[in-house]
């Protein structure tokens, strides 16, 4: 029978989380250790080592950013959008700030087999390694998915990809401004990569300001599509950034399942 210490720990997590931990733990001791970590605030996904993302199971490892359900939702929407806009076409995709690689991997799983070629870019070597592991797990290695370690804010960035022209660019850049970063819940702030979250300008739009020119250089025109995730309250401002750049049209702002404007989508 479970000890009192164990029961007290178990009470501190939700029934649902307890069930998931129990399903994953090979024995009682392992379960106990997992509970200790969870109660200390460590993200469930780091403890369990993965998170579901569409039909895929994405490996998660600190400090790489854990895929969010909002991202899963707009990636599904994007897959539908793209198959209506470019039916039966081979798609060349670049995913900036790729992290675990979840976005292009989910797109590869949702779109017709063999129709996707994607490239993931991330500044972190750890993220690049993890993304490659996830690609292998999903059965989408080179050339369906490959990575390149790079800093998209560096002035040289577009030049390193100059040879290529992409049909679709996706990007979920860091978008949390410093003022909000400090008040993030501990399970995010203390465990996930600060560089994946923090956009060091007062409005948090540091990355978005760089994107229009990068997209102009990398996207084919016409008939190129981009989709970027934005933080709450940033939707309108990011839409304006792309509109002002004058190289894009049909710019839309999609809501997430919690009714927050979450994705800016546009075309060349």
């Amino acid at each position: 029978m479970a000890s009192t210490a164990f029961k007290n720990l178990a009470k501190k997590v939700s029934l649902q989380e307890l069930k998931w931990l129990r399903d994953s733990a090979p024995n009682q001791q392992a379960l106990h250790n997992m509970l200790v970590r969870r109660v200390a605030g460590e993200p469930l996904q780091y403890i369990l080592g993965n998170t579901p993302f569409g039909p895929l199971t994405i490996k998660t490892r600190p400090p790489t950013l854990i895929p969010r359900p909002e991202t899963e939702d707009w990636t599904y929407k994007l897959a539908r959008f793209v198959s209506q806009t470019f039916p039966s076409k081979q798609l060349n995709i670049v995913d900036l700030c790729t992290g675990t690689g979840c976005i292009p991997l989910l797109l590869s799983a949702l779109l017709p087999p063999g129709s996707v070629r994607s490239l993931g870019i991330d500044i972190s070597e750890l993220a690049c390694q993890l993304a490659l592991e996830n690609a292998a797990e999903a059965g989408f290695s080179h050339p369906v998915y490959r990575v390149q370690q790079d800093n998209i804010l560096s002035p040289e960035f577009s030049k390193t990809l100059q040879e290529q022209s992409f049909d679709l660019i996706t990007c979920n850049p860091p978008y949390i401004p410093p003022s909000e970063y400090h008040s993030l819940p501990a399970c995010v702030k203390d465990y996930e990569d600060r560089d994946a979250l923090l956009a060091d300008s007062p409005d948090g739009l540091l990355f978005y300001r760089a994107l229009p020119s990068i997209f102009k250089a990398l996207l084919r025109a016409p008939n190129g599509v981009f989709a970027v995730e934005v933080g709450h309250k940033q939707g309108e401002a990011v839409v304006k950034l792309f509109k002002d750049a004058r190289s894009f049209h049909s710019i839309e702002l999609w809501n997430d399942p919690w009714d927050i404007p979450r994705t800016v989508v546009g075309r060349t």
Partner: protein
Amino acid sequence: MHRFVQSSRTCLRKPSTLSKPRPTRRWLHDSSDSALDALEKDHAKLLRLVRRRIDVRNEAVDQTSNSSTEISKARYMKEYERLNAAWSEWTRARTSLLETSTYLSDEDPTMRALANEERASLLSTLSSLLTSTFPSLLLSSASSSAAGGATSQEEINSYSALIELKAGVGGSESSLFLESLTRTYTRFATLNLLPCTLLQSSPSDSGGLKYATLEIKGEGSYEKLRWESGVHRVQRVPVTETSGRTHTSTVAVVVLPLKEERGDEGEGEELFDMKDVRIEVMRARGAGGQHVNKTESAVRLTHEPSGITVSMQDTRSQHKNREKAFQVLRARLLDRKLLAEQQAYRAERRQLVKGADRSDKVRTYNFAQNRVTDHRIGLTLNGVQQVLDGEWLWQFHDALREDYEKSRFEDLLSEVGE
């Protein structure tokens, strides 16, 4: 354009009926063979019913201004052909029998012997048509001949099953028994080579499960398991009971029909309009996105017109929970549709087919006396463990099905009247 022909008997007949020769009532008394007479007398109602069904389908197929859709028309054609083929076999065998009878009193003994053999064989054919072929053809056709929109037995046989179990009275005993029944159905599925998935379950603090939803896929799974719907009652001495008293607890089981999914959630959906479904993802996430890492993935669907709500939270994926929730919604709506059809059917007839109230006690499991009784047909099996192992369930199902078909058949015959 109809051409009416007046016969010497002054009755008007449409060309369609003329082109398909129609025996009049005289055939009932035509026979000069006593065995044939007996057969026809015993199954007079059945024969009249077959004739009537053929006539109805005859007319439905001929009418050009029929409001039936192409699907029901095609179905009519199929049923008509089968029934008509069986009827042709009947008339052929019957005619042959009467011809053969004339040789029964032939001078040549060889001829007599041959005639007797043939007569026996033909009587056997005729008998089999009456006791097996006609009844099965009539029963498998659409339950409501006029409406045309009712679901056929063939369609029902193609459904998969969704089993929802809810703990009833009895506290922890009920939850423990629920867990037990979940295993029973899982084993049953395995025995029948049907893939079985636990869609969701909720553990009870004192052991066992408060509720569970199982999905059992494969043609015929709904048809087999539908008999499990109702309240199951267990009588036993709980493990925790010190004074050896027997407790009674219940579990409510509902078996829902699942049709094969067609693509995305809302595409080509016949059962509901996506606009009528409100999707709620649990708990506002504040800023959401990168700001937050919450693990709840619960989804709740509300189908406004019917008021049906489905909650799903068991998987870690919000998207998967959504998919499963829609699957359950579809199953509940299809179940409603079938119930409505059944009620319409019973309203038209003398109600020999018993209605199934979901809150009726259908089965009692008595551990002390090691027996399980199904109250609908009064069948008792002496082996609680064998039933709970899923091995003996088929015995209940077969008996219930037979009983149901018998009632339906009697209903059909009552259509004909005296």
